[in-house]
């Protein structure tokens, strides 16, 4: 019994002695290094690191903890449903309340303490509606220098129901995008029917009776040919050499000619 017990230790110590002495003392150092590494690793790696991936999962909570400033449109509707009902029937329906009135979460929590912005100055409306060639075609834009410069916009265009002060003309009712584009062009004072022959049935069956486009160059030549007397400021071209077989509108978009301003 006794020999059997001592045998493995004897075997082990013999094996240990067969390892060179310098390796034995170095391995002690090695074990200390491994233990220190494991301890240091535990100490340095943050607690929640690696829970869901190669990051601290506390970081998600840090991102969540940011206080919000904007309440969102649904909250506004809870009290101001009357204004919302008006707004939803007009072109500004896509604009959230806080786009103009500023961040409103504080106002929703304490309506009397935190008043919201009510931008009434021209500059605010103009930040969207001033003419800028980079803006999409058809977006309603004005030249702020010439468009009633001294009047605040709201006098004619109530911001929650921003319709035009006059009801749209016959063509504009359907072709408002073309109409707003035309307002920016040199041709703004021409009426649609100057160029397009519109039959009465077009209003009943618009696709079956499509208004005609000008088929000859004579219409444009009235103003743009050399030697004509109409429209003194209009650019002149030599009809004989300019354009070849093409009708004018095949190169020049008349609702918004390339030559502007």
């Amino acid at each position, binding site marked *: 019994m006794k020999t059997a017990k001592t045998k493995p230790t004897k075997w082990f110590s013999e094996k240990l002695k067969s390892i060179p002495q310098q390796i034995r003392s170095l391995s002690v150092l090695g074990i200390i290094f491994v233990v220190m590494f494991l301890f240091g690793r535990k100490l340095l790696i943050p607690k929640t690191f690696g829970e869901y991936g190669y990051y601290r999962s506390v970081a998600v909570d840090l991102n969540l903890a940011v206080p919000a400033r904007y309440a969102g449109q649904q909250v506004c509707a809870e009290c101001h449903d009357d204004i919302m009902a008006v707004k939803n029937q007009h072109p500004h329906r896509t604009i959230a309340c806080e786009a103009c009135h500023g961040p409103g979460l504080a106002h929703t929590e304490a309506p009397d303490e935190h008043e919201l912005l009510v931008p009434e100055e021209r500059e605010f409306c103009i930040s969207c509606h001033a003419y800028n*060639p980079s803006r999409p075609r058809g977006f309603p834009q004005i030249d702020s220098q010439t468009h009633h410069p001294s009047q605040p916009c709201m006098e004619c265009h109530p911001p929650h129901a921003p319709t035009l002060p006059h009801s749209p003309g016959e063509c504009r009712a359907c072709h408002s995008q073309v109409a707003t584009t035309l307002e920016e062009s040199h041709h703004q004072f021409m009426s649609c029917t100057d160029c397009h022959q519109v039959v009465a049935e077009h209003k009943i069956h618009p696709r079956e009776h499509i208004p005609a486009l000008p088929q000859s160059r004579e219409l444009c030549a009235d103003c743009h040919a050399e030697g004509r007397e109409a429209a003194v400021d209009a650019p002149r071209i030599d009809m004989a050499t300019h354009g070849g077989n093409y009708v004018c509108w095949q190169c020049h978009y008349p609702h918004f000619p390339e030559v502007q301003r």
Partner: protein
Amino acid sequence: MTKNQTAQTRREFLKRCLQIVPAAALVPLSAQAFAAEGYDPTQHDYGMGIDVHKCIGCGLCVQACKIENQVPQQPFYFRTWIERYTIPVEGEILVDSPNGGSQGFPPNPLDPKEVMRTYFVPKLCNHCAKPPCVQVCPVGATFVSRDGVVLMDPDYCIGCRYCIQACPYGARFMNPVTRATDKCNFCYHRITKGLLPACVEVCPTQARIFGELTQRPNPLARFRRVNKIQVLKPALNTEPKVFYANLDGEVR
């Protein structure tokens, strides 16, 4: 006397330890309380759509983003910004973004006769499915969350700026206040509560659409169904989750 004192301090020490235990247990609870109740990040896969044709360059999104996320008001710090592309008839393409477009845009510096076409492009972090910025972070301070948003860990960021260099979209900056890298996080504190990101909320023309990639129906799913979609720099294989409709080939 001294022995008595130490005994008292030891007692006090143990008392304090007992007080700390329940307080420590409460900390993770309060952190979880920020998210909406029952919010499961594995059930979401967020993305954004941008219709370039609809952007009017008003800068409301840039302003709202700065307010909502407390981005420093000085120039050059933006989580989202607007670029104006002007393609002249001849010569180099002009791209400008004065103050990120937050105060709108001045008249085009080029003569209208020289301009072939011009448009605005809103930009932000693309929340790539394969983000190069996450690849290079040496400490794991930026990561893709389980709901597909690329988030920052501002407390853990060491400020080495590797991610700023790695981002091909220039969406990251060094926040001088937190001294950590900062970027768009889709207003993570809002979207987890069911609100829209601030930029999407205030966009007057609905040029920005927010929604989910896999779940239907939602506004982004419709946006991707009805439009022809492009992403920025597709050749880099970053798989962005910000989708552009009506994007011009010149946009980088």
